[in-house]
């Protein structure tokens, strides 16, 4: 039993990869859906059991193919990795379930199998990035995820999508180039690719190679920063996320930009280690970009006209919070980075799916046209409201928990002024989310001609959204447990 449960990480990657290539062979659409959902449920349940196992027994290392570390590839599974793995599988399951009812309205019918292939490949590679303990293996998965992500953007073949995908591809390749160079630097110093071995070698040989280490750090930071939408390098994100079909947007925003950050955290703390890191100002750089992202992401979001673009820019701001948390450099900050990854993944997927639902039911795109939508689609706007409140940081909801603990973390690290940034960015969040909600529900002239429940979708089709939002509230409500669980496996 013990040994078989340790197979879960590898098994979920393999199952996803294999089924990815079976899916396009199926002719009937319903078969595709059934197989895809079945596989996703299977993988999610596996990962849930795995998290429970980890909760009782702690983390472990897993040698793929029984080759030990310097030669074979090793997976490192701890509390953080297993939790993120479960999160990714769960969100993907919900998004796929939701797309069951809306996908054929957004993309051509013969692309549906293809979409699932790409999605499964994407998820498998993201899980790979999260689980791996081998730096080069992580890079390979990173490349796979980039290509698959381009695929799910361009699966709806409009002009805007192709443009966005090319932009993403080019910038992403630049990022990958930097990561590869970083790996080359690290390899040249240490002669290893497995994270633990590199760490030992770096600690022993650090003298005199300070500059080389620093250069490699910056290469990793910028390279993974592009993929993780670090503020000035976020330019690919709004185009890609707003033009893609809504399920793709949800996956892109909730999962794809999160995995590189986990990888970055792993590189910081498992490859270099807290000691080397403390001697540099790289974390201050990350903090600086995080702050910029928090403020400017929200400012840009405020000036958007299209709903999905606004939500995409809000992602930039939220990624700013995560970089902010990493940049604080203390334990609580790092825990909150992981917690915010979880919180943002569930919240943002809710936002994108409900926004997609508005767009699909009304045919409109801009924010102005969604006035009074609360009368026509009260439940969906309710879910949107709940998630928006979480983004703004209303207590109990996960967004508040992150902000509160981030405030605690910044006090802990002695940077009181950062509180102002946190409060200002919350205020900015409120500035662009509240008008949508208020105009959606209230106002006499907004509601003229709107018929109650006229555009509501059957509850059956809203179920995945409702489950997601319930999970979101639970993530906030039981934040104590989650934070404690993450704290057990955090790398400091």
């Amino acid at each position, binding site marked *: 039993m013990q040994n078989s449960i340790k197979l879960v990480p590898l098994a979920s990657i393999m199952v996803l990869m294999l089924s990815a290539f079976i899916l396009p062979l199926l002719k009937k659409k319903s078969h595709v859906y059934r197989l895809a959902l079945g596989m996703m449920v299977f993988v999610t349940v596996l990962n849930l059991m795995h998290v429970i196992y980890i909760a009782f027994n702690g983390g472990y290392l897993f040698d793929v193919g029984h080759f030990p570390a310097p030669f074979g590839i090793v997976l490192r599974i701890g509390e953080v990795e297993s939790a993120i793995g479960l999160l990714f599988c769960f969100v993907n399951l919900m998004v796929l379930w939701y797309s069951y009812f809306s996908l054929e309205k957004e993309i051509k019918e013969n692309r549906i199998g293809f979409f699932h292939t790409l999605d499964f490949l994407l998820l498998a590679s993201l899980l790979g990035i999260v689980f791996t303990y081998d730096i080069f293996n992580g890079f390979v998965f990173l490349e796979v995820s980039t290509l698959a992500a381009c695929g799910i953007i361009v699966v709806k073949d409009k002009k805007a999508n192709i443009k966005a995908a090319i932009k993403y591809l080019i910038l992403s390749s630049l990022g990958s180039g930097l990561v590869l160079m970083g790996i080359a630097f690290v390899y040249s110093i240490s002669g290893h690719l497995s994270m633990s071995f590199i760490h030992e070698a770096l600690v022993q040989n650090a003298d005199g190679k300070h500059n080389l280490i620093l250069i490699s750090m910056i290469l990793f930071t910028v390279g993974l920063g592009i993929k993780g939408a670090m503020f000035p*390098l976020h330019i690919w994100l709004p185009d890609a996320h707003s033009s893609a079909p809504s399920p793709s947007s949800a996956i892109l925003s909730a999962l794809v930009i999160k995995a590189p950050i986990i990888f970055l955290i792993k590189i910081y703390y498992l490859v270099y280690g807290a000691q080397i890191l403390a001697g540099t100002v790289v974390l201050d750089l990350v903090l600086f970009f995080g702050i910029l992202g928090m403020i400017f992401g929200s400012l840009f979001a405020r000036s958007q006209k299209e709903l999905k673009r606004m939500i995409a820019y809000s992602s930039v701001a939220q990624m700013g919070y995560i970089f902010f948390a990493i940049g604080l450099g203390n334990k609580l900050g790092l825990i909150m980075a992981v917690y915010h990854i979880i919180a943002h993944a569930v919240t943002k997927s809710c936002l994108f799916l409900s926004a997609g639902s508005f767009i699909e039911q009304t045919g409109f795109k801009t924010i102005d046209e969604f006035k009074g939508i609360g009368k026509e689609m009260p439940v969906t706007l309710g879910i949107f409201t709940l998630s928006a409140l979480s983004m703004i940081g209303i207590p109990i909801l996960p967004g508040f928990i992150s902000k*509160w603990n981030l405030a605690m973390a910044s006090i802990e690290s002695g940077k009181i002024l950062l509180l102002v940034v946190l409060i200002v960015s919350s205020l900015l969040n409120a500035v662009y989310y509240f008008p949508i909600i208020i105009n959606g529900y*209230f106002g*006499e002239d907004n509601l003229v001609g709107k018929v109650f429940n006229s555009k509501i979708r059957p509850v059956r089709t809203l179920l995945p959204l409702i489950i997601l939002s319930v999970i979101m509230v639970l993530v906030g*409500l039981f*934040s104590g447990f989650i934070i404690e669980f993450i704290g057990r496996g955090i790398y400091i």
Partner: protein
Amino acid sequence: MNTLVYILILPLLGAFIGYYIGTKNEMKRDLFNIVLTAIELLLVITLFPAINDQAIEYMVPNVMGTGLHLKVDMLRYAMLFISALAWFLTTMYSTQYLIKKKNRNRYYFFFMLTYAMTIGVFMSENIINLFTFFEGMSLTSYALVIHDEDKYSHEAGKSYLAMAIAGGLVMLFGIFLAFDYTGTLDIEEMGKILPNLGDIKYVIALLIMFGFMIKASVFPLHTWLPKAYTAAPTPSSALLSGILLKTGLFGIIIVLVEMMNYDMPIAVLLYCLGLVNIFLGGILAMMQRNIKRIIAYSSMSQTGFMLMGIGLVGILGKEGGLALSATILYMINHAFFKILLFMGTGIIYMILGELSINKISGFGHKKQKLKAFFLIGVLGLCAFPGFNGFVSKTLLHEAILEAYHLTHHHFFKITEYFFIIGGGLTVAYMLKLFVAIFMEKNSDFYGKYNELVHKRALIPMGILAGLIVFIGVFPNAILTPLIRYAEGIGFDAISHVVIYSSESVIYSMMSLLIGVLIYQLFIQRKLYVKNKTGGAYFNPSLGWFSIETDLFEPVLKMLYKVFSFLFTLIDNWLLFTAKILADGIKSISNVDIVTSIDREFKSVPLGASMMLKGLKSKKDALKNIEAKVKINEALELDLVQGQTSKLKELIVKGHSKMTSISNSIFLFGIVVVFCFLFVYVMG
């Protein structure tokens, strides 16, 4: 689980269950809500024996991030009790009041949510819990304020929400600072560390109090109050004034007494603000014609009395036990008579749809029950002997005298006179209201509408009127536990106070006399215009200086303009330097080509050189004329235009190009270089 948790959870669940029932059957929902609030009231009452001896606390770990820490002592119990009672009565009253309104289900949903949040505010011992519930209360009560959804209520709602959110953020900042310096979130723990901190404690206390002061409508943060009270449906106005206002005062007491350990400068500040509130509120109330506005400004004026009480607690320090119990009693009393008055107003509004004193004068002349209940409320508010207001005002007066005897400072002697005159103002505006509605004769309303005054609306008013008289006649029933509480939390023992002494009655009569004089000499002569059909009041304060529109808005607008100007300046400057840089680079890279065009002009084919400069459209015009001259002219023209087309186009182009792929790559390069520079320069 604990009774405290049940008390907190019950209305929260009730909100959702009630909403669900309401979608099926409204009658059942009304019944459900009444039963629920009654159960809640009973739960609160059964808590009393336990509280009477000592405070009870309960901790729910792992919820809301920091855990939920509940505590009920006598102060909190008093607030809980008036909330439970007020909600029970207003629920009963609402069932009749709301019959003609729409969106009733939504109303009750937020009504009960606000209830839960208010209960939470009064039970929290952890400051972040308190903040959470306080903000939640602001948001849920916003839905009550804008319930009518007309232009006026939206405007009021905007003002209400904006101030609540601003207050919340300021308060949060204060809480952060407090946590930074004390390392704890429990109010009691904070109270042990905070007073020893030095000057930073004033910053913390003022920041935290800012949010509470907004809710308590302390000058100059009262601007939302008259609008919100007038816009909200009457049961909500009653709660806003009766209970939600008290959350603000409650918070100020918590900060001053439990966190700051009776700090003198803050206490004096509160005391002075209280005086300002009494007079500003009182004078504005005299001017108004809308009865809800009169009562709203009266709330502001009464807040002043309570603030004076809180200030006295701080000034007297260890001997402020009497002032504290007087303030708590004042808060209880104010809830009772203010809710009663709002309910009376609501009945008039429900029947006539009109609130202006000129149009409804004489409405209540022959409606005996309504008149009697309203009169009891007015007498309570005016502190007439035998009614509850008299008790609390006498005690407060006693506390002012105590402060004078303790310090022998003439400031307190002077403020004592102000206190009595302030009471006179109360009498004056209530007299104006009562005489106009219930004493004037207006044959239009004789014998009409009597059947519209339902029992369901009168019963709650009757209960409140009974309580007002009860407290007035047996003040010790409620005063004894309050005094015991004050002594229990470390105040010196309080010598027995005689409430009905000849002195206190004389002071009360002085207030009354001043009130009647103001009414006769000022209101009747200056504010009342006689004409053929009778007469009408007018409101001279309409053109007065308004803090909101004349101070807050222009300041905010100015700030906004200054910032946007600065930002556009920076923006333009950036673009300008970018343009100069780009032009510079361009001119450097163009050096050869330009000179070669000039020099070897004749050898360059005409078409090619024109294409080079993008002059294709001018080709035809140039055909017949000598080439060299014309092209030089055209080049010049192009250059001039290039300079004059200047920034504006550049900005537009710049924005559209900002996100193009090639620019992205540039940006990427810049970021990489920046990162290296940053790390090497800073490290």
